[in-house]
């Protein structure tokens, strides 16, 4: 019995050593979810073409949620912001035209050192954004 326990613990330790040997550079291009699924979670479409107004509303929404802006670019259409509340939550939002009459808004967030890949926080963000925009956020199809 005790031999068995010893063996299992040896195996567990060996496995842990193996894991720790994997190079941490594998994080560079790592994602848990598939690209398609991530895009669906992180993007919404709005029926407007006013990019500047959308960007200004994105900034206002981020401020409402307690973020401080890090960077904003009107031409590239991106805004990055950080929220500090014991944790650090960093978010980048981009706004791009989609067809002739729509804008696509994409957000991605990082919580401390982890990517946020849950649908719920993004849903909350887009709810706040569409309220501020007085427009409905459509899922990308």
């Amino acid at each position, binding site marked *: 019995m005790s031999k068995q326990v010893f063996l299992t613990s040896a195996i567990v330790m060996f496995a842990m050593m193996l894991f720790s040997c994997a190079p941490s550079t594998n994080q560079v291009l790592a994602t848990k979810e598939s690209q398609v699924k991530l895009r669906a979670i992180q993007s919404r479409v709005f029926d407007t073409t006013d990019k500047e107004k959308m960007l200004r509303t994105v900034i206002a929404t981020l*401020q409402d949620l307690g973020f*401080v802006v890090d960077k904003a670019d009107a031409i590239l259409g991106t805004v990055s912001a950080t929220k500090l509340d014991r944790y650090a939550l960093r978010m980048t939002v981009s706004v791009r035209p989609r067809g002739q009459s729509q804008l696509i808004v994409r957000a991605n967030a990082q919580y401390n050192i982890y990517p946020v890949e849950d649908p719920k926080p993004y849903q909350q963000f887009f709810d706040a954004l569409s309220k501020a925009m007085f427009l409905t956020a459509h899922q990308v199809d």
Partner: protein
Amino acid sequence: MRYLTLKRLISYLITCLLLITLSCANRIPNEALQLSKESLKNRQLQTRYFDTDERTLLSASAALLQDLGFNINESETKLGVIVCSKKRSAKSVGQIVGSVLLALFTGVYTPVDKEQLIRASLVTKPLYKDDHETSKCRTAVRITFQRIVVNTEGQITRRECINDPKIYQEFFDKLSQSLFLEANEI
């Protein structure tokens, strides 16, 4: 023999529990991106309206931020954004005295807060535009402060938003002065 295995089992359980709690630390809190009652209160606290155009307000704000010792990190006038920061001491006498006393009695050294990075983003929003007369324009300005405090060991001890009404009140008082100076070209 039996007792030993039980002990091992318990230690395994504890390890598992630890791993579970550790993996919970990477979950974003539910309220992180949720609008709350506080959000509205903070918006009111952090926003003021001025009867001037966006350009004038932005340049008066940049001048004030410099007055206050901030460095501008980033700006995008097309979206009315200024991002600035400054590094300052975070030493507090009370904390140092406490640490020294504790060291005297217990011999244990406790690190104290050393420096802080204060960050702010200032965002303007035109509410009414008049191309001919700037005094007829109306622009909103919102500023948000946050800070990161590091102790003598180089560890982060605080990461927080600054929501003290007095700080915002004082900032906006100074901003109206800055606008006045700007209007009179001082």
